[in-house]
Structures are given as C-alpha cells and as structure tokens.
C-alpha cells in the first residue's frame, strides 16, 4: 500500500491537513484508531467566530448555540463580563464536537482522502533512518503503509513525534487534566460561556459551563497535572456541581475525561514528517483552546504538503514552510501566553479577587490599555507589583 501522505488521527488537525493536501492533488490516507470519527468528544466545545472567515466547514449542523460573550468568576464570586468581541477568541459558538469533526472529515473525503478506521499506528517504517511510512494494526492484522510524508495528528498522547526523535513528553506543569459532563435538566438562559477560577475550585485551571441549549450544557474542569492527586478532577467537578444552584438538578447524558497540553509548541518538522494539532502542542496555554490553531495550522500543513509532493522533495527544509507558517500565524501568541500562564499560576485567590473587583465595571469595548491599567491600580494599588511582569510581556508583544 503506497500513498503520498499518511496521516495518523482523524481529529480536526488531521482532517484539515488531509483536505488541503488532497485539494492540491496529493494522494492521502488517514488512519484512525477509534471506531467513529469525533467520538468520544474530548473537548469543552467552544470555538471562536473566526471560523466563519476561514471557510473550512459547511452548513450549521455542528453549531449548538451562539454565545454573546464570556463571564469570568473570581474565587469569591465576583463576575467580569466580556463581550463577544473581547471573549470571541474561544467563545463564539458552542458546538457539537462529534458532528464538527465528522463534517471536517467528510470534506476531506470529498476532496479525495481515504480513511481507515479501527486502525492503530504501532510504529514508523524506517530505511537507513529515513521515514518511509507507518506500521499499523487493524484488529489482528498487522501491515505496513508506505508514504513519502507521515503526519502525526495523534493528539495529546502523540507517539509519532516520539518515534521520529522529537521530545513531546509533557511536564506535569504543562498538562491540564480534565473531566467533563454534558449535563441536562439544568437552567442556562444566558448566552454566556462561564469560567470559574480559584484554588479550591480548580487548582491551576478552571471550571467551565458552556450552554448547548436552554437546559443543557457542557460542564467541565481542567486542573494542572502538577497540582493534581489521583481522581481529583472528577471529585472537584462533582463538588462544584453539587454546590451550584443552577447545576445541582442536572443529570449527565455524557461523562468523559481528557487532557490538554498547555506547553510551548514542540519542533514540528523532520525529514518526511510533520506534527499538527495537539500533537504539535498547538494550544493556547491560558485558555486551553486549540481548535482554531488546528484549522489554521492544518491548512498551512496541507498546502506545504501539496508543494512538497509537487516538487517531490520531502526533506526537513522543504517541509519547514509549515513551521514558518504556523509560527507566523499563532506561534508567537502561544509563546507569549505560555509566559502569561506561568505568571498567572502565581496569583493567589486574593489577587484574583482584587483583579476581578477592579475589572467588574470596566467597559472593555470603550477602554484603552492605559485606561484599563488605571482602573486596575486605582482600586487595588498592590496589584501594580503583581501585574508589572504581565505588562512587560504585553508591551514586548506589541513591538
């Protein structure tokens, strides 16, 4: 079996990479270890409205609800409201992630991509250190799939990168460990994505409540693995739901666990190999959101593969067009937000409460950066010291 490209993983990054490669005439195969694309849904299911501009997905079947913005609750319950244009980064739509993934896969297939389900990648085929494809296992059959390029779209637990000699092992402080319900029989009449912060609520992370309808929401928790104890994510999520008057009556129609990398990106290119999506650690370290990067990065990866196959050159230098592209598109943002994440982790509950108290009445749409700083410091002068490093990062980012 020989293809131009074999992609391991049929998530958004894999499907979008596949589609754009196939549209430039490349012969693509996706292998997927699961029995259904998009299932289980390991996701909070929020996505930016930016997706509208990219033209990567058809129809509206994948949209559960439209959001007006986000509300962030500090440990003492002080609420900061962000309009869609401010919060839009992660909270434009709440989606049905299973349908979303299947739509993206369908579009890849329409472009000529082949998919093999129930198929585990078990290793890379190498010839004199050169990658020549992947070894796979489908039920009891083991066989080889030859390809000029292998794409690791195999998610947070990526093995493809490791097999190619890229160190993708995450430190516990760079992983959010998550648990998530779809809760029915609750009341969520407001079109806001809610985030709850605090050491007791979700150490090093947050609880989210993303409404998918009037009486149903995706309710989940992410905590930093370095602050976790066995089973803590589920226990804290259950405690939160029990103590929340709107959610207490809820009954789950889905329960899942997941993990989200919140690290700096890794190297994503070798001779004959690319990494995309969570496997490339293309996640915003502050929010844990990665969908938009998958779509943007996947498109760049697909186009790079198209060029490479056209020229029949598969070396690292040729494929580096992809790494240059994603660094330009969102790499700097991830790097900056990683530094911000590290600083935010040092904020205790008291500082978060002061921050929220300073920001609760700010009209973000109208206020300048300087106005924002003034509002922060006016109420709680001690915040100035805490925020200094943050302001430094943000002013460097503008240069």
């Amino acid at each position, binding site marked *: 079996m020989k293809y131009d490209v074999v992609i391991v993983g049929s998530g958004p990054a894999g499907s979008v990479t596949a589609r754009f490669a196939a549209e430039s005439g490349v012969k693509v195969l996706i292998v997927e*270890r699961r029995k259904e694309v998009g299932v*289980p849904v*390991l996701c909070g299911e929020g996505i930016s409205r930016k997706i509208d501009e990219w033209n990567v997905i058809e129809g509206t079947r994948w949209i559960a609800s439209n959001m007006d913005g986000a509300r962030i609750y500090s440990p003492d319950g002080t609420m900061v409201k962000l309009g869609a244009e401010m919060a839009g980064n992660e909270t434009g739509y709440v989606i049905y992630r299973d349908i979303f993934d299947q739509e993206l896969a369908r579009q890849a297939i329409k472009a000529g991509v082949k998919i093999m389900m129930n198929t*585990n990648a078990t290793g890379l085929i190498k010839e004199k250190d050169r990658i020549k494809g992947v070894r796979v296992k489908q039920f009891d059959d083991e066989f080889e799939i030859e390809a000029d390029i292998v794409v690791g779209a195999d*998610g*947070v*637990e*990526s*093995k493809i990168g*490791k097999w190619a000699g890229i160190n*993708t*092992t*995450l*430190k*516990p402080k760079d*992983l959010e*460990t*998550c*648990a998530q319900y779809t809760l029915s029989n609750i009341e969520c009449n407001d079109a806001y994505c809610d985030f709850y912060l605090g050491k007791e609520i979700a150490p090093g992370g947050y609880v989210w409540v993303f409404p998918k309808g009037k009486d149903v929401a995706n309710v989940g928790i992410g905590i930093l*693995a370095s602050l*976790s*104890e*066995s*089973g*803590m*994510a*589920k226990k804290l999520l259950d405690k939160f739901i029990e103590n929340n008057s709107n959610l207490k009556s809820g009954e789950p129609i889905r*329960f*899942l*666990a*997941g*993990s989200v*990398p919140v690290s700096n990106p890794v190297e994503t290119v070798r001779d004959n190999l690319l990494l995309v999506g969570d496997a490339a650690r293309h996640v915003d370290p502050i929010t844990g959101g990665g969908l938009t990067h998958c779509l943007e990065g996947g498109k760049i990866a697909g186009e790079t593969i198209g060029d490479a196959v056209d020229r029949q050159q598969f070396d690292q230098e040729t494929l580096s067009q992809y790494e240059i592209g994603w660094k330009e598109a969102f790499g700097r943002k991830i790097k900056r937000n990683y530094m911000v994440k590290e600083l935010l982790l040092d904020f205790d509950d008291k500082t978060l409460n002061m921050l929220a108290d300073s920001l609760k009445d700010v009209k973000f749409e109208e206020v300048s950066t300087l106005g924002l700083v003034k509002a922060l410091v006016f109420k709680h002068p001690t915040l100035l010291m805490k925020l200094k490093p943050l302001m430094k990062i943000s002013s460097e980012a503008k240069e």
Partner: protein
Amino acid sequence: MGKPKANVDGKKCLACGGCISVCPQDAILMIGSYANIEKDKCNSCAICIRMCPVGAIAGEDN
C-alpha cells in the same frame, strides 16, 4: 521488590491519553479502549497516578 509500579484499572480508564503524554519513561500505550503500562519500563514515579482525572491508576506491589 521495589517501589510499587503503576497499574491501570481498565474498567475505570476513559482513554483520555493524559498519562501517556506525561510518562517520562514512555511506558504507557493505548491498547483497545484503555491505557496499558509496560511494567518493565515503569520507574514508579507516580506522575500518572496523581494526574489521572478519574483515579483509574494505582500503585501495585510487584
């Protein structure tokens, strides 16, 4: 005899893959619908035990 090695309870594991991504020994593989730990590679660091969101991994005396 040594420190307890990590062991996955296949009935509790939800196959999220988090343990695989943090294992410094690369000792964990997803086989079928749950994570499997290669005992020979495990160095008893317990990172996976602490991070498991549903408490599906425990130390096991060998």
